[in-house]
């Protein structure tokens, strides 16, 4: 056991840091630092910069475009990326459908879809949730009926992030209603330009418009777009819910946020002529989050190291989801607290890419409350934290 970086790791750290300082788009880092919204074009550009360096998919197998990094290198990369303030990757292609395609897709599909994902030329979104199927995903009812070489898809997906930008959607659809509900589900890739698809934005409680309803009305989808076997879609999707997904915990980003809070606190008046860093209550609550995060960082590293040595990543990674999102949510609450009275104003125009609205109060406080509201979603999506606890109880504790 050794916590220190060896010389190769130190060299790698330097390489990554230099990359973000010199090669990565500086204007995007600046927007992030100013808490400005990024346009979809910004997101694509930032991902292309990583791809140019060969670093767009550290968790993919090398044969498909992964980096072949050790857990330590992945850790260093995540840390440096967060330190630079680079935006997180849009997860739907690289983190979700990509691994499904290279694991369960056929050669043709791999050739057809993986390059577009790696190059960020194709924007993906996820079609899992339905109005009637939230945590009970398997009860979904969007139908895909076979008609020659096509499926005819009809139904509604909801809660679909970034559907407004997406070129493709990966969907769970019901191809059979005869068997046990899990067995009738298939995994289908659908071109968003197909006739019969309409996208309607959902306004969320923070005022955001990131998520959408996606309606399918007799949408024709070639059978070639089926991943793996018909009826096996549930198994593929479950892999995403239960298996280790690096970055789900968001450790590096949360660390950076904690440092940001500390830095702001040194410059924020506590109302009595001292700074918020002199407010012992606030600082101790910050400390408790930091400690939880220090532990989670090592929980993630232990998981990565176990995977490296061939152990199954397994359902323990539900901890990463639960604790990671709890920490992220607590951090948003600390920002709200720090903002004091300036948690109150609501200025959504501030986040429209390129807008020029004066913020009320300090700039960092402008999105504090919206972000708190928005981040309530993190314990709901990706397999709600209740579902994750069910998974631990069943798969880890054997209950």
């Amino acid at each position: 056991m050794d916590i220190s970086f060896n010389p190769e790791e130190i060299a790698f750290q330097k390489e990554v840091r230099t990359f973000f300082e010199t090669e990565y788009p500086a204007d995007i880092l600046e927007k992030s630092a100013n808490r400005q919204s990024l346009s979809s074009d910004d997101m694509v550009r930032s991902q292309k910069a990583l791809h140019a360096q060969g670093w767009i998919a550290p968790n993919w197998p090398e044969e498909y475009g992964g980096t072949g990094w050790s857990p330590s290198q992945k850790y260093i990369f995540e840390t440096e990326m967060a330190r630079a303030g680079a935006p997180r990757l849009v997860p739907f292609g690289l983190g979700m459908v990509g691994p499904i395609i290279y694991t369960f897709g056929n050669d043709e599909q791999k050739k057809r879809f993986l390059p577009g994902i790696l190059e960020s030329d194709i924007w993906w979104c996820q079609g899992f949730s339905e109005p009637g199927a939230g945590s009970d995903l398997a009860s979904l009812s969007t139908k895909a009926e076979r008609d020659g070489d096509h499926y005819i898809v009809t139904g509604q997906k909801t809660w679909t992030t970034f559907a407004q930008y997406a070129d493709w959607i990966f969907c769970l659809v019901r191809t059979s209603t005869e068997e046990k509900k899990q067995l009738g589900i298939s995994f289908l890739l659908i071109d968003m330009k197909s006739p019969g698809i309409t996208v309607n934005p959902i306004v969320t409680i923070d005022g955001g418009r990131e998520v959408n309803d996606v309606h399918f009305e007799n949408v024709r989808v070639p059978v070639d777009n089926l991943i793996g076997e018909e009826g096996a879609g549930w198994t593929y999707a479950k892999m995403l819910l239960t298996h280790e997904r690096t970055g789900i915990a968001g450790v590096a980003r949360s660390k950076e946020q904690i440092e940001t809070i500390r830095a702001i606190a040194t410059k924020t008046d506590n109302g009595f002529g001292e700074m918020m860093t002199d407010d012992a209550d606030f600082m101790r609550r910050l400390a408790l989050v930091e400690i939880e995060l220090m532990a989670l960082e090592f929980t993630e590293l232990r998981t990565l190291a176990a995977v490296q040595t061939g152990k199954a990543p397994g359902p323990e990674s539900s901890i990463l989801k639960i604790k990671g999102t709890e920490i992220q949510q607590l951090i948003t609450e600390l920002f709200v607290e720090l903002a004091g009275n300036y948690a109150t104003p609501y200025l959504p125009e501030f986040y429209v890419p390129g807008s020029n609205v004066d913020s009320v109060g300090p700039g960092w406080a402008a999105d504090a409350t919206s972000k708190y509201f928005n981040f309530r979603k993190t314990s709901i999506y990706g397999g709600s934290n209740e579902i994750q606890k069910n998974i631990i109880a069943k798969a880890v504790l054997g209950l």
Partner: protein
Amino acid sequence: MNFSFSEEQEMVRDFVERFVREKYEPDMRRKIESSEQGFSSENWNMFAELGWLGLPFPEEDGGFGGGAVETMIIFEAFGRGPVLEPFLATAILAGSALRQAASAAQKEALIPAIIDGSIQLALAYCEPDGRYNPANVSTMATETGEGFVIDGDKSVVLNGPAADRLIISARTHGQQHDPDGVTLFLVDASAKGVSRQNYPTQDGFRASEIVFDEVAVSADAVIGELHGGYAILNNAIEEAILASCAEAVGAMEMLYKATVEFSRTRKQFGVPIGSFQVLQHRMSEMFMEYEQTKSLLYRAAMAMDAGADDASRTISALKIQVGNAGRKVGQEAIQIHGGMGMTEEMYVGYYFKRLTMINSLFGNIDYHLRRFTGA
């Protein structure tokens, strides 16, 4: 000791509850919130006609002489909207300052107009660096021959946009953090040198940043004693805490009930989610938090009306309880509603946001814990 409402109190409660039921259906509220003004003048006029705006004012000033219990009754019902009309800003925050310290002339000029709904007020006491400390006043009021000239910035002034008159705190003496030397002034919102940046708040109200740039006021603009504004502010804030905590209790009631109702109809895994024991226990806890908060609300209102020694301490206890319980009830309501709770369409978000903002207004949990422990 006596825990019953009087007949008059029950009547007021029934009235206000009916108003909220009838005029604050989610769609109606959405319309009011998205209007330019952010509240309904029609509702405001109805408040005046029904005498509600007079309730907190003494009979000799034309009011109905209601106390903390009456305020509590109105605001607990308002919390079920949550009602957007600026009762809190006008009749409680600013109203309290007038009740406590205004001269006969000031009262005569303002209180009847408040009661008949023709003017609105705002209390401008927060400052950009002041956080929750009302003694932290760097806005200066400099004495001149004819009166005072006021310079400085006030932040997050509730009801700033609609206020006809502002009551503002300014320093006439002492250092930036001294409780002593703060004076309250009545300023016309359209006076020369007053400029407002207006905005909506996270929970659908309206507020302003207000800059005072060489605003000249006459000597009779002073409310109460010169240098003696801090105690007045403190009392006004305590009344506002009681009112907003009553709102919080109303909001919590709506949230726990809406969540229970949702859980009865929403099916997952072939059964209503309300049949899952984990959610049952968590909803039981929401119910307990609501009941406990309501108990402390009653206690605080009764302590205020009795002028009890520990009234201020009880107000802080209430604010802390509302902070903790409101957070728990609000977060659980969203979580149990799942994705649906995150959408603006489901009105649970209104209550959640109002609870969040109430925690953040008038001093958060830490601030009031310090006050409560005397640290």
